[in-house]
């Protein structure tokens, strides 16, 4: 313990050296901006800074990337809260609550909560990385595709079903999204599925087009066509974020749970921030005494999701530093940076390159503290956009959606898909079909398929493998419970109501 503290102290001093601190701050700025722009993902931005790391040493390179990583996972929340446009899939649960809070006039509170819970989640995960990385890596190595499949199913079940007032509508939306995720070339056999000869469908439906279309374009159309107050109805008021240090105390439960879920799921190689944000949000619904408030602008949902996203950053670094296995796409790029500089991450790294490792870990701590200030400034800049009149804002949102979709593959087909999903999103809202489960289906469906098929191959098509492994069995049992419990509750309520009615009829002479 003492040795770790000494190393961490030395790392902190090194991380605060002008060059290293500059790299962290630069990375944070790049990450927050890229994360906030739909179509430019956090992973894209880490890839974009990779060539610059040739010119630097390994520590400043990694600190630059860590800055981009920490800033990137948070950046998408700002536009999600203000404009209902999540920058990355991982920011979707934050958007569900944050945008509703914003529309209810609590923009400052929502932005402040997002900044603070991100910073606390990221900070806790960096400290976890410093103190518990090696034993946790050994535990996480025991997870296989079977457990990953169950984690994804748990995420799908908990978020789609809990808190939705019509479970069937949510399930229709979820299965439709999962089906969209199967369109395109299948990964295992390379077979085209449901492309029907349309060239751009062969590469599949990119979830970013679904995300941008359903949330942003759908919302613009919704705002524009409301008869009550054209183009201004429901727009949140101008907002300067506040930093609610004390406001976090009543939300310590969701904050702690979200952070822990982020660290654990982030630490499972292959899961990552998106899965952790959905699972954390779903779990929070289960813990909540009022799950019906989720989706209406409920602060615990935002805090749980946001702390989990940044909490996953430290978890994902554990695999990279202790085993040399990248736990996510972002850490895979960082592995590239290590290899460029001739360093092989792995069990020996903590002894042979202790100074560099602890500087990187300390850099994560510095990045998460600095993110409070930079996140505040970024939110301030984006919040000033709220002063822009709605006709201008709505118009430019559509143009940015065009650019975001086109930037994916430089293909107009993605723009068409985005606009199509935008119109679909509008009508889904009108027809009573919830949008979030569809988005979840598109994002998590392909992951579930991949893990399921891998599990089947490794177990010789033995389905019992999902029940014989304890973690998987518990997660699947919980998933079933989540789906069945509301059905039983509804049936019981109906029985009680009909019982009361018949009692009343008998009592009437």
């Amino acid at each position, binding site marked *: 313990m003492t040795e770790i503290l000494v190393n961490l102290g030395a790392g902190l001093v090194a991380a605060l050296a002008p060059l290293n601190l500059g790299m962290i701050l630069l990375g944070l700025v790049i990450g927050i901006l890229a994360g906030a722009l739909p179509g430019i993902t956090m992973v894209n931005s880490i890839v974009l800074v990779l060539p610059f790391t040739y010119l630097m040493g390994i520590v400043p390179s990694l600190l630059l990337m860590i800055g981009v990583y920490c800033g990137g996972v948070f950046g998408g929340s700002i536009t999600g809260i203000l404009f209902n446009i999540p920058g990355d899939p991982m920011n979707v649960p934050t958007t569900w609550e944050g945008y509703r809070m914003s529309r209810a006039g609590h923009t400052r509170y929502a932005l402040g909560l997002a900044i603070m819970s991100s910073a606390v989640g990221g900070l806790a995960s960096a400290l976890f990385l410093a103190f518990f990385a090696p034993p946790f890596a050994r535990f996480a190595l025991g997870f296989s595709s079977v457990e990953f499949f169950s984690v994804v199913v748990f995420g799908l079940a908990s978020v789609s079903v809990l808190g939705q007032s019509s479970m069937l509508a949510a399930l229709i939306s979820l299965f439709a999204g999962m*089906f969209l995720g199967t369109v395109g070339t299948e990964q295992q056999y390379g077979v085209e599925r449901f492309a029907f000869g349309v060239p751009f469908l062969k590469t599949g439906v990119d979830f970013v087009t679904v995300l941008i279309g359903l949330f942003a374009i759908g919302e613009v*159309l919704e705002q524009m066509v409301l*008869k009550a107050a054209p183009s201004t109805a429901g727009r949140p008021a101008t907002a300067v974020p506040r930093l609610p240090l004390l406001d976090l105390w009543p939300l310590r439960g969701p904050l702690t749970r979200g952070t822990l879920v982020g660290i654990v799921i982030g630490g499972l190689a292959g899961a990552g921030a998106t899965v952790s944000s959905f699972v954390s949000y779903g779990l929070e619904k289960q813990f909540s005494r009022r799950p019906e408030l989720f989706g209406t602008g409920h602060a615990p949902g935002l805090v749980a999701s946001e702390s989990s996203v940044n909490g996953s950053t430290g978890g994902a670094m554990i695999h990279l530093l202790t085993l040399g296995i990248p736990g996510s796409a972002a850490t895979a790029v960082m592995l590239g940076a290590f290899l460029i500089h001739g360093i092989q991450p792995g069990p020996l790294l903590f002894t042979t390159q202790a100074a560099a490792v602890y500087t990187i870990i300390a850099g994560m701590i510095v990045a998460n503290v600095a993110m409070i200030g930079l996140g505040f400034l970024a939110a301030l800049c984006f919040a000033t956009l709220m002063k822009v009149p*709605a006709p201008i804002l709505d*118009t430019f949102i559509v143009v940015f959606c*065009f650019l975001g979709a086109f930037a994916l593959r430089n293909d107009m087909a993605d723009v068409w898909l985005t606009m199509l999903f935008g119109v679909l999103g509008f009508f889904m809202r009108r027809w009573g*079909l919830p949008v979030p489960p569809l988005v979840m289906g598109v994002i998590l469906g392909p992951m579930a398929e991949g893990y399921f098929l891998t599990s089947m191959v490794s177990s010789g098509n033995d389905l019992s493998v999902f029940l014989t492994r304890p973690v998987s069995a518990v997660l699947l049992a919980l998933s079933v419970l989540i789906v069945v419990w509301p059905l039983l509750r509804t049936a019981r309520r109906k029985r009680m109501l009909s019982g009361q009615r018949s009692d009343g009829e008998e009592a009437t002479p």
Partner: protein
Amino acid sequence: MTRAARVVAPLAGVALAVGLVLASRGLDEVAREGQLGPGFWPRLVLAGLGLACLLKALGDWRRGTPDPAAGAAMEPASEISRARLAAGIALIVLYVLAAPWLGFMLATTAFIAAFMALAGARSPLAITANAVAGTAILLYAFVRVVYLPLPKGEGVFETLTLAVYRALRIF
């Protein structure tokens, strides 16, 4: 809404799921011996979709009045302007349709002006300024800084786009 009208949409969902299951025939021909083929997962998902739609149709049929809970999770179905909606969707479709032909620059300038007017902007000066300055800033940011190869248009429109690119020093 009549009972029959209410079940049309869920039943269409069932029909779509069945149709897609039929379309997935032949996908498993490439499957290796003893392994699940590429058609297994989509069929599983489509079975779930079909079943959920069927249950929804049955529920809506048995229920005498529309399910008030179904829409509660979403936006309240407030009154909307159908004309404005149709015009908005038409403008978006025209924008995407025209972009490869007119080029991003001209299509965006026209779209910003038209969509702003539709969304309620009334000042011609504000509309023109936003359309022209907005497009120029976007071009500079995305062509010069991000190197995004935005559509330049065809024929004379391409020539015009390239001339503006040169004037803005982004080409």
